[in-house]
Structures are given as C-alpha cells and as structure tokens.
C-alpha cells in the first residue's frame, strides 16, 4: 500500500525528518536533533508535532447529543459548550473500539478526533450506530492538525494568536473560531504528552503556514519539530494508553485502568450492560519499573517465578525520568506498588517492580 502524505510532508523532508510508514501515512519518527532532544524539549521548553494523520468526524443535528453520548463512556450531557473530553468508545461486548476526543461545540454539534490507525473502523462503527435526526461526517481529509506541547507553548501561542481572547485558557477546553496570522483554526488545550499545550486544527493549506509561523516565531521559546518517536516516549512517560498496545477490541476500559472515564451510572451507552455484567476486572493495566539492568519492551513476557502473569504492552527507556519503564496488564493480585516481578527480555530475566501510574506528572501551574 502506498502511504499517504500529510500536508506537511515537504516540510518534514526539508527538516531532515527520518520518514517512516505509520498508520497508512509517511511521517517523521524523528528529526536531526534526535528523539531524546525532542522529548526533553517538550518537557522543558516546547515541541511541535504534525499529527495530521489523526482522523476527525462530526456529529450534527437535533439528536447529536443522544448519539454522541451513546457512543462513548463519559457523560456528554454533563459537558459544557467549548469543552473537550477524552473517552473510550466501547463495542457491545465492552471492549474498546477506540479512544477518542469529544469536542462539544453545542448540543447539536460535536467534533470527534480518532486514531489514524482506526479511522475506517471507527467511521463504519459510528455510522452504523447513528439513529434519529443526525448527520455523521468523516472530515479527516479536509483537516490538518498540529500539537504544540510543552511549558513554553503558552508564551508562544500568546505571541502568534491574532486575538488572545480566542486562546483557550483552561485545560480541555477549545475555541472554534481562532486564527493565527490570519489563518482560521480551532485551538484546544489538549495533548498526548502529559505536558500543557495546544492542538490546532486547520485546513490542509493553512496548517502548513501555521507550522511555519510556530517554528519561525518560536525560537525564543525553544520550539523544535518533534517526531513520532518522542510522541510515543512522552505518552508512555505520562502513562497514556495507546490503541493496539494498552487498548484493543477485547480489552475493557476498566481493565485498561480508565475507570475515571467510564460512567457506569450513565443510563445508556454502548457496552455499558456488558461492562456491568462482567463486574470487577480480574486484570488491570499497571506500571513496571526496571530495577535490574536493561530495557523492557512491547511483547516481553512478565513472570512471577515460573508463572507467566502478563505481557508488556509498551516499554522503553523514558528520557525525562531517565529510567526504563513499561506498562502491562497484570492480575489484580500483583497491582500493589512494590510487588516484584521479572520480565523476559530476549531470554534474560530482568527484575522489575510494580509502580503506580503515571511515571511522570507535570507540576500544575498554568494560566
């Protein structure tokens, strides 16, 4: 299959991005500064990611609220206009179809952001569940997306936004009609790095101009372009799940330790009955910290003595915490922090201990 190019493909090549196929797109895994420098820039200054591969869909109409609420596990009725929520979207068996962002424009207009790798599956699923007076549209191909992440992203955004009143000030809120150097965009205070920052949505043409403005105006704030590699290590350090690793069609959001985002007291949503019927999960996603020497990675088996108790779903050396960590779904008997386990890495047993998630949490101070 020929990979698709995002609107920023030429920019990535000019910036010496190491281009790799990902979720049907060709994207930079890192630029010439390297993954660690990119990761550290996001934790200490700011970094800019092309995330135009992400999918977007809209649900509009009189019954948009009911339909959106039915698709996801969070309470969409409780959302205010201009608010964003992260949420699992379940199948009828209580497994996870995808984890998505829901933007509530108003009760009749919702904007959804979905994983690139799941786009066609999600769109077919959501379309099949629409009922009543509602219009569903996959608008992925007409939207480019950037993520500007890191403590300096606020100062940088203040500098480039045309009207500071259209800059979202609160975590998980958005402004639909913003503009940067005359280019219209939707801006949200969201991200996938565990750091404060923004995500910016614009037309494929305008997103290129906005990308250029951020890099040229952001020198003082230390902005550098960042690739998929840093995106993955940042989300792992912040213990955010990644579909296909910590989430899947046969993993429930409760097993994935996303209890906070599952409102079982909501009167209806797809998968609710199955989740209630299954009761308390017997396994849950938890953190592993390497206490020996080495790095644990995806697919490595986790042992208690001779007993296989789970598999590492994501693992690496996390640059900011400067430690080898991973996540795994383990039986509930092993969830107590400090519990000793071993991980088989290429035939070598590496001692690890169970730790609470996340591995990194930003200091909370933002305006």
């Amino acid at each position, binding site marked *: 299959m020929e990979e698709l190019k995002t609107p920023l493909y030429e920019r990535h090549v000019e910036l010496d991005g190491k281009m790799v196929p990902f979720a049907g797109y060709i994207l930079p895994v890192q630029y010439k500064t390297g993954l660690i420098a990119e990761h550290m820039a996001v934790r200490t200054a700011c970094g800019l990611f092309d995330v135009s591969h992400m999918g977007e869909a809209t649900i509009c109409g009189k019954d948009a609220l009911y339909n959106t609420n039915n698709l996801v596990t969070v309470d969409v009725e409780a959302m205010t206009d201009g608010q964003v929520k992260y949420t699992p979207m379940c199948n009828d068996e209580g497994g996870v179809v995808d984890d998505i962002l829901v933007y509530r424009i108003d009760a009749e207009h919702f904007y959804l952001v979905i994983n690139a790798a799941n786009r066609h599956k999600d769109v077919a699923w959501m379309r099949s569940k629409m009922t009543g007076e509602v219009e569903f549209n996959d608008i992925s191909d007409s939207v480019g997306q950037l993520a500007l992440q890191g403590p300096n992203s606020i100062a940088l955004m203040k500098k480039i936004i045309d009207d500071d009143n259209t800059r979202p000030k609160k975590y998980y809120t958005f402004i639909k009609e913003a503009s940067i150097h005359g280019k219209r965009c939707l801006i949200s205070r969201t991200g996938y790095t565990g750091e404060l920052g923004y995500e910016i949505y614009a037309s494929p043409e305008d997103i290129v101009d906005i990308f250029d403005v951020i890099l040229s105006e952001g020198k003082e704030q230390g902005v550098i372009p960042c690739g998929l590699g840093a995106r993955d290590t940042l989300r792992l350090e912040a213990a955010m799940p990644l579909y296909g690793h910590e989430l899947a069609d046969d993993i429930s959001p409760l097993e994935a330790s996303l209890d906070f985002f599952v409102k079982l007291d909501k009167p209806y949503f797809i998968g609710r009955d199955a989740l209630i019927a299954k009761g308390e999960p017997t396994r849950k996603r938890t953190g592993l910290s390497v206490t020996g020497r080495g790095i644990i990675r995806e697919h490595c088996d986790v042992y208690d003595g001779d007993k296989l108790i789970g598999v590492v779903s994501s693992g690496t050396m996390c*640059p900011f915490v400067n430690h080898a960590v991973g996540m795994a779904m383990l039986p509930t008997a092993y969830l107590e922090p400090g519990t000793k386990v071993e991980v088989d890495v290429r035939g070598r047993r590496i001692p690890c201990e169970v730790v609470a998630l996340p591995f990194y949490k930003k200091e909370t101070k933002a305006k």
Partner: protein
Amino acid sequence: MLKIAKSHEWVKINDDGTAAIGISDYAQNELGDLVFVNLPQVGDELTAGEVFGDVESVKAVSDVYAPAGGTVIEINEELLDNPALINESAFDAWFVRLENVTEGDGLMTEEEYDAYVATL
C-alpha cells in the same frame, strides 16, 4: 589499522596484536540516541561474525556482531554508564579490547566502507 564489517562494526588492530572493536558512525546514526549497551565479560571468547552484545536506542534493540574473534581482556565500563558516547564519537567509543585476535572475513578499509554505505 581500522577495518569495518558489512554489518557496521569496526576493529582496530594494534601493533602489539591486541584489538579494540566498536560500531561505525553510520550505524550509530541509523540507530539514533543509544540508551543501553550490553557487553560480554572479561575472559569471554568472541567468534568473528557472531553476536557478542547489543545496543539499544529508545526505539529498538540491535545485535552487535564481532568483526574479529579473540579473548576479551577489557570492557569499556564508561559505555555502560553513558551509551551516548557512541553517538558522540563512534570510532572512539570502543566496546571491548581483545587478544589472540582473528579477523573476520570480508572486512573493508575505511574507503571501501564509505563507498559501501553510500550505496545503502
């Protein structure tokens, strides 16, 4: 005299017959930021062409093949603490020193190697 294997490891053979081995600049650049190195122990016997250790970047682990055989007389402890030294200066960042050295097959001179990587 510096010689380099097709699998991107170098060997420098000294006048006293001992040798040092490491990985090439091209290899470190392809691997990206290195964060972990696994080395053999002093006294281990290496066989030319066989795996003797591994290096790990944030993204992946890669085997390292011995460009020459011999007995390990010293390992570079500094690399264990600071694998980034390989990224900084690959041809100075030796992994192990060997005695009783036997060169592997098909080693290239620096010029030959540079011409080879230009085709990759």
